[in-house]
């Protein structure tokens, strides 16, 4: 028989017992649907997480700190006491923090990091800065987390841009602060000057003026405001009395740095005795539990598929039994053993195919209905992106996988059909 004849014969055969075929496929659909939903969910969640993280990190930035090199830590990574590295910085933060003890880096570390080939710039990262409040005009005073903005920040802003070198008092505010600063939209907030109060270690408050140059994207979790480097430095100087000690260094590579290059930069920095955290490390931290969860859910889908596989075996065994005479006839008329086997294998693969395609289409339909609802309710802040995503390759993979499972399930009945003796088969009632 021709290949097309095998395929059409298999479909005709499946249609002969419509209800049974339908039920067998339905059982399979439960498995493939679950698998497609798990894939859609975990893929969507991954890109959701990545979108969220994009407001925090930039791919070309590497966070450098002390504390990982073997000469700085003892057993189980416990750091040694290093008198010249330890500092106590007094600060008054929103949670009432007064003292922050930490390993500190200094200008000589900054010079070393800048010297690493591939690093184009390095900046102190003053994570210790805590402001009292931020206020626009006579509106209420709000607390706000702040951090330093560095050149080459690559976050796509809702409006405006990151402060340039000349915008020494620039600030990029979180999306959620738009109304707090009296604006109705992100673009309306641009250019407004806000007052930021910082209290020194001597308990003396001081007001700094900051001009809004940009608004962060509307992500579900909002990072703190980004302050222009110069403004940040002067606040830190005022609050702690020094800018020569800092907890981290932000090392910047070219904006088009690849993942492999990031890894080699990380290795180079670590070789100098520092701890380096790349964008990939941050992503991996978030993705790892996600992978575990999706692997677990995939396991459940696999169990559903396994049960459906038994259904296929059962259906085909029954079909072989019912069509024994027909198999005898086909053999008498000159069909080879492997031809008969092939008919049943194609039938089994067809059940898998239909089960796969219906499951995937159903899942896509659920996504089509659920995505807009999810975007409006639980998962706001991902714009037009969808929580449930259906990458074509994965969906095609599910369908092909379903066909392979069908084929495997069909092997036993198909071989049994092929082995039937034509005379016995023709006598079968």
């Amino acid at each position, binding site marked *: *028989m*021709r290949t097309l*004849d095998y395929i059409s014969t298999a479909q*005709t055969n499946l249609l*002969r017992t419509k209800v049974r075929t339908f039920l067998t496929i339905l059982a399979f659909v439960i498995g493939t649907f679950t698998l497609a939903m798990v894939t859609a969910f975990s893929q969507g969640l991954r890109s959701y997480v990545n979108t969220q993280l994009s407001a925090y990190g930039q791919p070309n930035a590497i966070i450098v700190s002390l504390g990982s090199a073997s000469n700085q830590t003892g057993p189980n990574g416990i750091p040694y006491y290093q008198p010249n590295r330890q500092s106590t910085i007094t600060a008054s933060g929103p949670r009432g923090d007064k003292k922050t003890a930490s390993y500190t880096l200094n200008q000589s570390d900054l010079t070393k990091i800048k010297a690493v080939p591939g690093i184009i710039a390095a900046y102190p990262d003053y994570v210790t800065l805590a402001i009292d409040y931020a206020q626009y005009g006579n509106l209420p005073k709000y607390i706000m987390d702040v951090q330093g903005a560095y050149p080459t920040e690559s976050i796509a802003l809702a409006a405006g841009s990151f402060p340039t070198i000349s915008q020494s008092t620039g600030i990029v505010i979180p999306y959620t602060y738009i109304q707090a600063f009296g604006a109705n939209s992100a673009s309306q907030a641009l250019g407004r000057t806000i007052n930021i109060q910082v209290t020194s270690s001597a308990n003396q408050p001081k007001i700094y003026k900051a001009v809004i140059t940009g608004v962060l994207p509307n992500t579900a979790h909002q990072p703190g405001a980004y302050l222009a480097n110069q403004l940040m430095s002067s606040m830190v100087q005022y609050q702690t009395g020094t800018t020569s000690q800092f907890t981290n260094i932000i090392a910047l590579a070219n904006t088009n740095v690849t993942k492999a290059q990031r890894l080699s930069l990380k290795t180079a920095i670590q070789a100098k005795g520092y701890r380096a955290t790349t964008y990939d490390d941050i992503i991996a931290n978030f993705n790892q539990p996600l992978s575990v969860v999706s692997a677990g859910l995939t396991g459940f889908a696999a169990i559903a598929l396994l049960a459906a596989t038994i259904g296929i075996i059962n259906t085909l065994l029954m079909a072989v039994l019912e069509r024994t*005479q*027909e198999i*005898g*006839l*086909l*053999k*008498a*008329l*000159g*069909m*080879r*053993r492997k*031809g008969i086997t092939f008919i049943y294998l194609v039938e089994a693969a067809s059940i898998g195919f239909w089960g796969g395609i219906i499951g995937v289409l159903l899942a896509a339909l659920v996504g089509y209905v659920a995505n807009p609802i999810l975007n409006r309710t639980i998962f706001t802040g991902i714009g037009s992106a969808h929580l449930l995503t259906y990458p074509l390759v994965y969906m095609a993979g599910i369908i092909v996988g379903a066909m392979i499972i069908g084929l495997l399930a069909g092997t036993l009945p198909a071989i049994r059909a092929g082995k039937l003796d*034509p*005379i016995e088969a*023709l006598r079968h009632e």
Partner: protein
Amino acid sequence: MKNPDQPILKTAKLHKSYGKKTNRFEALKGIDLAISRGESIAIIGKSGSGKSTLMHLLAGLDKPTNGNVYWSDQSISRMNEKQITNLRNTKVGFIFQQFFLQPTLTVLENTYLPLKIAGISSHNRKKLAKEALKSVDLLDKSDNLANDLSGGQRQRVAIARALINNPEVIFADEPTGNLDSETGKQIIELLFSLQKKNNITLIIVTHDEDLAKKCDRIIKISDGKIIK
């Protein structure tokens, strides 16, 4: 050129037994037979005489325990599965008592089944099936389901199916067994006329004395031996 006098089918000391040791049952006990091209043969005998077994061996549906079946001097007992299925597909036509049409397929689809198995294109097999149905006068029923036909019509479809591959030999196993006598007669007339027209060797296994008498030769089997 094939020698027209050479037998198309020949058996030599054909033995067939089933089972093992104490349960051993000898169905055929040495059959020597030669059948010419275009000849019509009736194999008769009581049930259990071995006549069906003989037909199965001649048609290559089964292998002899001992001895050989020759198709134009070629031993089919030594053929592998591929060769023997190919032989059945291209040189043999079958007509069964129970017709064995596939109920969910149309008359046309049932007719071209051997050609579909052979891998003939859809266009060609449909054309040939229509010719075969025309010769059994059922062209107008081409698109009917086999289930919707009467017994006689079904057997005519089966004849068309047996003819479609232009076979050298047609095996008919009790072709009138499921038909009333009048319909049976018509089927037999049709079968013989087509056999003569196409110079096909016809081998009929039957109980039916009247049918057997119409054949060129009658082979009577009893207890696994030819007795006449």
